[in-house]
């Protein structure tokens, strides 16, 4: 059943991609109407990146509350996905900018704020790699997340919506655009959930292996060595 769901996900992604290119009419009101179709890939990436950020923040708060290392694993896994989807949002946004404004990067307020957001994520992962002790790393990362969290709504919502920007505001999409955009958002969200689950499972295995290797010698091995020794 789960396997069928995964095959259905591939179909959904393929159909929404094909629909984005072949079924959607050119977007009226844009300079390059044909390439403006990229919004149906750009917007879902930013929606899923925001969702992944929220999930990561929730698990960071949960770690500070429950002190369960699994929450730290879930938090960092979700932030890794969020970084990837924010990077995809930036790349698809740059393609859109090139087609609409003639240049891929124009230091627009939205582009600059997303760059700052990406730097905050990079700082988070740099911080994590600098601390060896897993408990200390989890606590410091969770506290960093709480502070970084204050910047996220400011950089993604407040600043871009209250500053002059090239980025289109209050765009009204036609029904076809809304269908493809939300179907693609569902597909990208399922990809995030699948990758997140696998990332957490792999980190959990690494945690269990780390715990096992930290035991100097398992008691059973000690007993076996003692039984085998002649004295």
């Amino acid at each position, binding site marked *: 059943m789960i396997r069928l769901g995964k095959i259905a*996900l591939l179909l959904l992604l*393929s159909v929404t*991609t094909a629909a984005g290119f072949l079924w959607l*009419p050119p977007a009226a009101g844009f300079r390059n109407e044909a390439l403006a179709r990229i919004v149906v890939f750009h917007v879902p990436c930013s929606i899923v990146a925001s969702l992944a950020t929220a999930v990561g923040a929730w698990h960071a708060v949960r770690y500070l509350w429950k002190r369960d290392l699994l929450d730290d694993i879930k938090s960092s896994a979700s932030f890794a996905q969020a970084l990837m989807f924010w990077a995809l949002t930036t790349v698809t946004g740059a393609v859109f900018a090139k087609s609409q404004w003639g240049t891929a990067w124009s230091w627009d307020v939205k582009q600059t704020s997303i760059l700052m957001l990406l730097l905050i994520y990079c700082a988070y992962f740099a911080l994590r790699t600098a601390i060896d002790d897993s408990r200390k790393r989890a606590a410091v990362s969770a506290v960093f997340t709480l502070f970084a969290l204050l910047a996220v709504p400011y950089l993604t919502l407040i600043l871009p919506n209250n500053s002059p920007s090239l980025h289109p505001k209050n765009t009204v999409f036609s029904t076809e655009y809304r269908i493809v955009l939300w179907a693609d958002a569902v597909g990208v969200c399922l990809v995030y959930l699948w990758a997140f689950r696998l990332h957490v499972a792999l980190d959990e295995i690494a945690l269990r292996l780390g715990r*096992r290797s930290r035991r100097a010698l398992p008691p059973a091995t000690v007993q076996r060595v003692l039984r085998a020794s002649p004295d």
Partner: protein
Amino acid sequence: MPFFGPDLNPGTLMTQLLPLMLVPLLIWLAVWGYLWSLDFKVKRLQQDLARTEGREDDEE
């Protein structure tokens, strides 16, 4: 509404949109294939680890 959009002539479609469409399509296919194969590997690792831990518990 026609399937291929209202004002796209077949020439534009074949020379520009179809090759462009293949890029995200192939990326999705690669991502999906990677996750699919990783799923099997993770399941096998989890089973191996559970078996090893079970064996160690029995020995203890």
